[in-house]
């Protein structure tokens, strides 16, 4: 009952016109930022933090939350329409989302991503309220062997996504290989910088994403002889059959995303990978994936939004930020005199 009372108080605080406007502003800005490669929600919150000085803490935090969720969805826009992921968590959406757009169902892909994100965010918030303290303890019990297993799961899942397991594994290992460029985190010695100063920071994900997806798409459209612009996205709402196919994917993605989001350093990217593979495994006809299966959009999109809420579990209950965005949010909370942690709720 106390929980319901607190929930009602939260709705009363959030439902004022000015706070709703701040939420709208945050979501719109977040979507713009999600579309732009190279700028993630953490950088956006850091950039916008000074602008909120003088605003009420409630409004500012609502805006940052809207920005975080909006950025997760913003990456979907470019993933579906031009096959370039705006965020690393939108990579899996390109596999089926872009195919749906080529089939004239781009609007449905965007619509189901928005609906799935909304449902996942709501379920994630319920999970945050009900399960936060025990989940935070489990999340912090994850040690190096568990993280190794999770990373191995993600990489082997990637190998299973494409048609050829050999090529999938080779591509995964090539990615790991490129990850060794820069400074060795254990020893601090530079590796594979070839005498170039700018390689000391390693190869940024955004550079890889734009090079592989963006340039690759441009070269592929050259090969086809004409570009295939997605000008008409068609209807946005899914029909009954599409909703029937996507609803369980949204629920599964929400659960997977929330649990993985609670884990330190796991994040929305791994959550979307695992959600996609889970959908492919439980599907009656896995051959549809990669050719415009709506579950391939609904599952990962729900997972990446649910993981955004999962990140708040260790942050709010224990005061421990488990991602870059959570660290910036911690700074924002402290700026407004709030200290996340066990004392926050007393």
């Amino acid at each position: 009952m106390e929980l319901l009372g607190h929930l009602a108080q939260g709705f009363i605080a959030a439902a004022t016109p000015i706070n709703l406007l701040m939420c709208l502003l945050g979501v719109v800005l977040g979507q713009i930022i999600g579309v732009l490669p190279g700028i993630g929600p953490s950088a956006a919150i850091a950039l916008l933090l000074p602008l909120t000085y003088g605003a009420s803490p409630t409004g500012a935090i609502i805006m940052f939350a809207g920005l975080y969720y909006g950025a997760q969805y913003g990456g979907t826009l470019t993933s579906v329409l031009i096959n370039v992921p705006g965020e690393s968590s939108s990579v899996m959406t390109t596999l089926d989302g872009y195919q749906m757009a080529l089939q004239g169902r781009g609007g449905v892909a965007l619509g189901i991503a928005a609906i799935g994100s909304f449902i996942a965010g709501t379920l994630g918030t319920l999970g945050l309220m009900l399960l936060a303290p025990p989940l935070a303890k489990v999340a912090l019990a994850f040690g190096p062997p568990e993280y190794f297993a999770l990373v191995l799961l993600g990489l082997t899942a990637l190998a299973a996504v494409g048609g050829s397991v050999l090529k999938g594994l080779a591509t995964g290992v090539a990615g790991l290989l490129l990850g060794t460029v820069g400074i060795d985190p254990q020893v601090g010695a530079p590796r594979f910088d070839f005498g170039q100063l700018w390689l000391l920071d390693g190869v940024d994900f955004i550079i890889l994403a734009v090079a592989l997806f963006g340039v690759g798409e441009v070269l592929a459209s050259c090969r086809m002889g004409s570009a295939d612009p997605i000008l008409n996205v068609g209807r946005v709402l899914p029909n009954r059959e599409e909703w029937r196919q996507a609803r369980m994917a949204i629920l599964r993605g929400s659960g997977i995303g929330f649990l993985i989001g609670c884990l330190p350093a796991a994040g929305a990217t791994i959550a979307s990978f695992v959600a996609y593979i889970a959908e492919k495994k439980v599907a009656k006809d896995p051959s549809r994936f990669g050719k415009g299966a709506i579950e391939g959009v609904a599952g990962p999109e729900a997972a990446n939004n649910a993981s955004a809420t999962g990140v708040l579990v260790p942050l709010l209950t224990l005061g421990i930020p488990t991602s870059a965005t959570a660290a910036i949010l911690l700074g924002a909370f402290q700026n407004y005199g709030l200290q996340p942690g066990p004392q926050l709720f007393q």
Partner: protein
Amino acid sequence: MNTRLAPGEVLLALLFAILGILWMVAAARMPVWSGFVPQSGFMPLWYGITLTALAAAILANLFLRRDPGAKEEPIGKPLVVLAALAASIVGLDLIGFAPSIFLLLLVLFAAVERLPVLRSLAVATAVTAVLFLIFRTWLRVPLPVGPLGI
């Protein structure tokens, strides 16, 4: 039956093999193991070995299972696009971000896609201006500046 290899697939496998061998050679020159602790070269060495082995397996797979329907795809246009992209990257430091991107877009629209020159000029100018406004003016990203000051 006329069976052919897809040249792109062979090229990809060879690229992986070269990358793997390069990494193995470079990693072998770094300290690999010290006492009971792996050093900087340990993981890159094993990644290189694994990638080389997988590349060999892909090549073997390609040669053993030839696709009878493999057809060659035109690569002229993609090569022009790649060359324009490479030139624009080199030009970033020489002539600056805005002129380099403007020329890249102009070449892509006018020369590659064969769109009307006026339309290509207009779109290239508009896109360059938007990128400049977003990244240089609004976000203050320090983009390369050329002799024209932009």
